[in-house]
C-alpha cells in the first residue's frame, strides 16, 4: 500500500480502520515493533490480534 513519508504503524492501522486495541503485537520486516515505528519504502508490516487456540 502507498503511504505518506513519515507514516507510522499507527497511521496504517487507522487507514485500515482496524480498532487499535485489537492489535496486540506488531512486526516490521520480521522484527518486533510498535505503533510509533516509522515506516520506509518496501517495509513489510504485520500486526496480529490475540491468538491462543490449541
Amino acid at each position, binding site marked *: 500500500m502507498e503511504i505518506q513519508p513519515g507514516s507510522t504503524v499507527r497511521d496504517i492501522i487507522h487507514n485500515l480502520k482496524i480498532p487499535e*486495541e*485489537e492489535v*496486540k*503485537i506488531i*512486526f516490521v520486516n*520480521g*522484527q*518486533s515493533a510498535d505503533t510509533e515505528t516509522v515506516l520506509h519504502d518496501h517495509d513489510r508490516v*504485520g500486526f*496480529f*490480534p*490475540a*491468538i*491462543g*487456540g*490449541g
Partner: protein
Amino acid sequence: MPWKSFVGDVVRASRSTDQYPFAFISGPELLQLAREHAVTPWQAQQLVLEKGINLERYLRNYSSIDLHMQLALARSKVLIVGAGGLGGYVLEMLARLGVGTFLAADGDTFEESTLNRQLLGTMASLKKFKLDAAMDRLQLINPFTKLELFPEFLQAADLPDLLSRVDLVLDCLGGILFRNTLLKAAHEAGCPLVTGFVAGQTGLACTVYPGDRSPESFWQGSLEQGAEQVLGTLSTIVGLIASIQSHEAVAIVTRNQPGLRNKVFLADLDKCFFQTLDL
C-alpha cells in the same frame, strides 16, 4: 543387584546388523524380560540404553538422535498442559521419539466440536476425559513411557510443584486466558517453556527460557478476543505447530539448543507463508 541378570539377558536377546554401530532389542522381547526380572518397562528402557543397546523401535531415529540423545530422551520428564489439539499431537510425537516421562494436565472431556482436529478425540472417547484417552494411546504406542495424569484445569498454585519436577513444559492450552500465568510460573521455576498457539489456518510457536523475550503480547485481552473464537482451528495447522513444539522439546532435552528462543515461528497455511520473527 537384580538388574545385572536382567541386563545380561538383554545382551543375549539383542541383535546386531552391519547397518548400525550398536546392538538392538525388540520391544516385545524387552517387555517379556522386564516382566521376568520385575523391572518396570520404563526402567528397562533406560537400563538397556545405558548399556549401549538400542530399542528396535528407535532405529529410524538414529541418524538424528544417537544413543546418548536417546538415553537423554528416555530420562527426560515433560509437562504437557492441555491434551486437546496441540497436546494430543505433541504427546503422540514425543512418545514415538522416546521421551520417558510425561506429566499431563487437562480437566476437559471430548466434545463433537473437537473431532475436527484433536488426535485423541474419537467417537469412542466422546464425553470422556481427554487424559483417559491419552493414557490409552500412550500404552498402545510406547509402553516404555510413564504418564502421570492431572485431570483438572490447573490453577496458578498448582504450577510451582509440577514445574519443579520436569525438564520443560509444553504450553498446549486452548485459549489465551491461562497462558501468561503458565509463562510466569515457568519463568519463576527456571523451567523452559515451549508454546504453540493457533487460529484458523495460522499458527505460531516459540521457546522461552527464563529471562528470554516472550510472545506474551499475543495473549492480552479477554477470552473472546482470541482470534480462534471467530476463525476456528483446522487440524492441519494444529499438527504443524505441534510438530514444531515437539522438535523444540527434543532439541532442549538432547542438546539444550532449541531454535526458537527470542523468536516466534509463524505459519499461514492459506498463503503457504512461513517466517521466523524476532521478538
